[in-house]
């Protein structure tokens, strides 16, 4: 007659509890509590200025909060947690003339006894090619990073993160600089990477149809967490209206491929 076993919550890699943050008196985050379950793809959606990027920056220790708590990997100090995190920003701040090529850029993430500056090209490629091949961008090795297209750059940035096998990968609007046909392939690629590496992925996105298709869990943010749950639970007209403030179509169209 044993009672049904208590439902255990899935383990989570990161958690925020009641985060509050205001800039010049203007509230940006209001009582934001969120759990990032292990090995799942979590989408963070919301309109422009809803605090999505700020929330990522708080998780990474780039932005201090006014109150609340952030727990990474069960409460590790930030310094110990960061090596387990991969972060893919929207863009780099490189001058277009900066000649750093993809091989050199990736080498910055390598842990080697010999500094990359003194390493032979072949030795570097041996260490880097697996990550590049996984993202389908082996041919970009000699290209200057500052001259890559939006989609190519995002792939290189993900390869950069994968070099240290992160347990949590944070992607800040990864398709912002990617053209429409490329978006679908890109999200599929992220899904592929997630399946292969069994990591947690946080995807900041405004593309509701892609979120519907690829995320396991969705948080809708508009200063506070308006709602969260599976894509099916969240992506209904009412929840989206709360998040976006206006009527938004759930838009979970089905591609015929």
């Amino acid at each position, binding site marked *: 007659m044993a009672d049904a076993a208590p439902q255990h919550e899935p383990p989570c890699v990161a958690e925020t509890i009641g985060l509050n943050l205001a800039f010049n008196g203007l509230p940006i985050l209001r009582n934001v509590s969120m759990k990032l379950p292990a090995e799942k793809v979590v989408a963070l959606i919301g309109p422009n200025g809803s605090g999505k990027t700020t929330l990522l920056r708080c998780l990474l*220790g780039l932005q201090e909060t006014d109150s609340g708590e952030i727990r990474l990997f069960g409460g590790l100090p930030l310094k110990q947690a960061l090596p387990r995190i991969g972060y893919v920003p929207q863009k*780099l*701040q490189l001058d277009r003339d900066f000649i750093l090529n993809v091989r*050199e850029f990736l080498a*910055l993430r390598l842990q080697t006894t010999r500094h990359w500056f003194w390493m032979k090209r072949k030795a570097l490629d041996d260490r880097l090619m697996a990550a590049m091949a996984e993202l389908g961008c082996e041919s970009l090795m000699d290209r200057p990073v500052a001259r890559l297209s939006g989609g190519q750059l995002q792939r290189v940035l993900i390869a*950069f993160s994968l070099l240290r096998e992160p347990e949590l990968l944070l992607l800040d609007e990864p398709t912002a600089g990617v053209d429409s046909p490329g978006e679908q392939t890109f999200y599929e690629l992220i899904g592929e990477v997630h399946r292969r590496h069994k990591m947690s992925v946080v995807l900041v996105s405004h593309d509701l149809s892609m979120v519907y298709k690829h995320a396991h869990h969705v948080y809708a943010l508009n200063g506070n967490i308006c709602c969260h749950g599976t894509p099916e639970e969240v992506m209904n007209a009412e929840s989206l209206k709360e998040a976006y403030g206006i009527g938004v179509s759930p838009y979970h169209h089905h591609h015929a491929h």
Partner: protein
Amino acid sequence: MLTEAFMIRAFLVALFLCPLCALLGVFVTSRRMSFFGETIAHGAIGGVALGIFFGLANPTPTVIVFSFAVAAALLWLKENTELATDTIMALLLSGSISLGMILLARLQGDFRGDIHRILFGDILAVGEQDVAVAGVLFLAVSSFVFTRLSPLTLISAQEDMAHVCGVNVRRLNYLFVFALTLTVAVSVRLVGILLVTPMLVIPAASARNISLNLRQQIVLSLVIAVISGLCGVALAYHLSSPCGPAIVMTCVGLFLITLVARPLLRLARS
């Protein structure tokens, strides 16, 4: 030429400082900080005036102190006001030149000759002390750059990513500004206030013309800077001209060569 002690000193100082400026210049240009170097260099005029005021034969110590004051003011204003960076730099640049000129005008004596040397550099002004300072600076700053090459490159690419990779971005930015300020302040003696920025920018830009990657750019910048420094000092001696313009003209000449070589190299590589 090489039998004269002052020439040996000038060659040595050029050999230490020109590659150092070029090495920092690779990151200065990539991080769009050229105007920062210009502001620090112009601030040096206040330091020179203070040096003369205190009766120092070699004003390098007051130049260094004054340059750090300008750099600290710049960083403080940048972090604590909402002013645009170039507005802050214009303010400090014009302010420190004006302060220096007023101080010089208030001092007894005729400083017109001194001002010429301050602005354009002077081989004869390079003493043994300057050689020692340049040598120590060369060792310290080049080891700083080479041991922190990856973090320095990362913060040039994306500061947030650098933070996630474990780089203490704020501390490294301060250290870079510290190294740059010190190098600019010491280089003023050789090339003059007006011509320090070209020493930061032109070798890096010339190397960029003919390089395929960052490693090549760093190595070629160093080579171009060494050639410019040595040829420039020799040119200054033969033409009896100030040292700074001679070094910078050599740099400009090499830049033009790399500009012509660029399409040719591209053809050869394809």
